[in-house]
């Protein structure tokens, strides 16, 4: 019961955030609503007892990526009169909704036609840090290592490139 209330709250918040992202004119307001969506998605992951994904969602998406986006928006210091005048944006919006509604109805029908499964949360610490780590390092060791090396190279490369340009100047 409690979990259901939480689910409805998080789902509603994430959809509201997404709507805000589209409808707000100012980029900072849009970005802040996207953060709301990201955090409510993290809440949904937590309800599925996927602890690691929950905290990674918070650190990577809601924390790191969004703070970079907001940093750039602040850096550009956009004022209201810098924004383009969008005439007929509600017309486009109505058109978009009209296109999407049949697709959404179709998707709902597809989901409903899937043979009913009792939705239960998988036990045994599924989604915890240790379990995900075991799966990663036992079944997916090579891809995981390749991806982590790639990220490490990107990190060091960024530092080296940033340092080099300063020397040339």
């Amino acid at each position, binding site marked *: 019961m409690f979990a259901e209330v939480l689910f409805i709250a998080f789902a509603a918040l994430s959809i509201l955030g997404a709507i805000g992202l589209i409808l707000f004119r*100012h980029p*900072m*307001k849009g970005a*802040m609503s996207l*953060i709301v969506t990201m955090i409510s998605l993290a809440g949904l992951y937590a309800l599925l007892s996927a*602890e*690691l994904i*929950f*905290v*990674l969602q*918070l*650190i990577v998406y*809601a*924390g*790191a990526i969004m*703070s*970079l986006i*907001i*940093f750039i*928006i*602040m*850096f550009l*210091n956009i004022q*209201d009169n810098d924004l383009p005048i969008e005439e007929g944006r509600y017309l486009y919006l109505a058109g978009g909704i009209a296109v999407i509604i049949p697709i959404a109805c179709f998707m709902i029908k597809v989901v409903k036609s899937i043979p009913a499964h009792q939705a239960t949360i998988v036990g045994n610490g599924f989604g*915890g*840090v240790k379990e995900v780590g075991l799966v990663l390092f036992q079944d997916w060791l090579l891809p995981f290592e390749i991806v982590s090396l790639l990220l*490490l190279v990107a*990190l*060091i490369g960024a*530092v080296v490139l*940033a*340092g080099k340009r300063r020397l040339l100047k």
Partner: protein
Amino acid sequence: MSLLDIFMIAVRVAFSAFIPLCFIAVCVWMERRGAGFFQDRAGPNRAAIYGFRAAGLVQNAADGIKLFFKEDMISDHIKHKFFFVMAPFIVFFCAIISFAVVPFADTLVLGGRGYVMQGIPMDIGILWFLAVTGFSVYGIILAGWSSANKFGLLGSLRSAAQVISYEIPMGLALVSMLIVYGTVNLSEMAQYQGQLLFGFIPMWGAFLQPVSLMIFVIAAFAECNRTPFDLAEGESELVAGFHVEYSAMKFAVFFMGEYVAMFASSAIIITLFFGGYQIPFLNTQALITFAKPVAFFMMIGLPIGMYYFAGWIRRNNVSHYPRENDPRVTEANVYIKCFWGLVVIIELLLIGILICQSGGSAAHVFVALLQICTFLVKVTMMIFVYIWVRWTLPRFRYDQLQKLGWQMLLPLALLNIFITSAVVIALS
């Protein structure tokens, strides 16, 4: 859920919510007295209630009242008032909930059930801290940006760039700690540090990973935006940086958020590197077994310590010139009586421990209280280190700050990870 369960949940949530709030007062007081001490002056010693100055603590109350009754104004040029008002609360809230995962005592066993002594008993521990401290950047960015002010914008640009770049060395320093401990759960980390290295050194993170300690502490200083990393505020160049437009309680919330963040990051440093709640050489099991001898020694030690403390108060709380019926002497006498009263109460409790059967739930509660006190004492010492650094080192130049983060701490942290993992693999 039994009544005890509900009570324990209430206790730990209350602890992790109210202790940071109480420590705001302690931190501000320590900061002022510490500044006075380092600059060879007296510090706050005028504010008083009926002549009682409480070593300068009354000054905090005076400041609080002042900030509360100041006019709370938002200037007209600020367009995004919602973000402007929300920003300080983001900073404050993030600081408070980042403390929620820190264990302040070992798992308390009462009636055959274990109670994890954390605000939120979560397995993800340190990752939660990283996530939540990352959010406090939003508060700073929104504050500076919505102020629509050059100084504010510059301050929050600097602060955001600094926090984002120091999060990377901090995370990498943590990785090598995670390799050593083999867990992200802060409770398990603290339990691990109760062991002994070579049989005589406490197995604290500081002894196992001194390089990681150094990197983490520097990065934590930077995350708290305190001198030598206070370029965001930079009073002499940016007036007050991102909170230049804030007044009254909105400023106070920023101010308190800064101190709560300082408390929470000291608590994390203590838990990661200095054994958390562990008393050196006495882990939880030993403490429960020897609860009575420990209580007995405390009963003897407390009055002796109090005697010398009373002497110290009497020597220091006098007027600097001869006065008839010196009010400060009467003040000191009242303080000394209060402290003796406290000692008597603690002695009575200790007698209670001596009477109770050993190994019972009274011993468990006693050990938990002892560990909470140890934890708070350690955190206070770490806060003192923060204050010490703040009033000793000058501010960095901005390029020096980025150079330190990216060109020294980052390679050092990466190297530390490789060496640590090599050693761990060689030993296992």
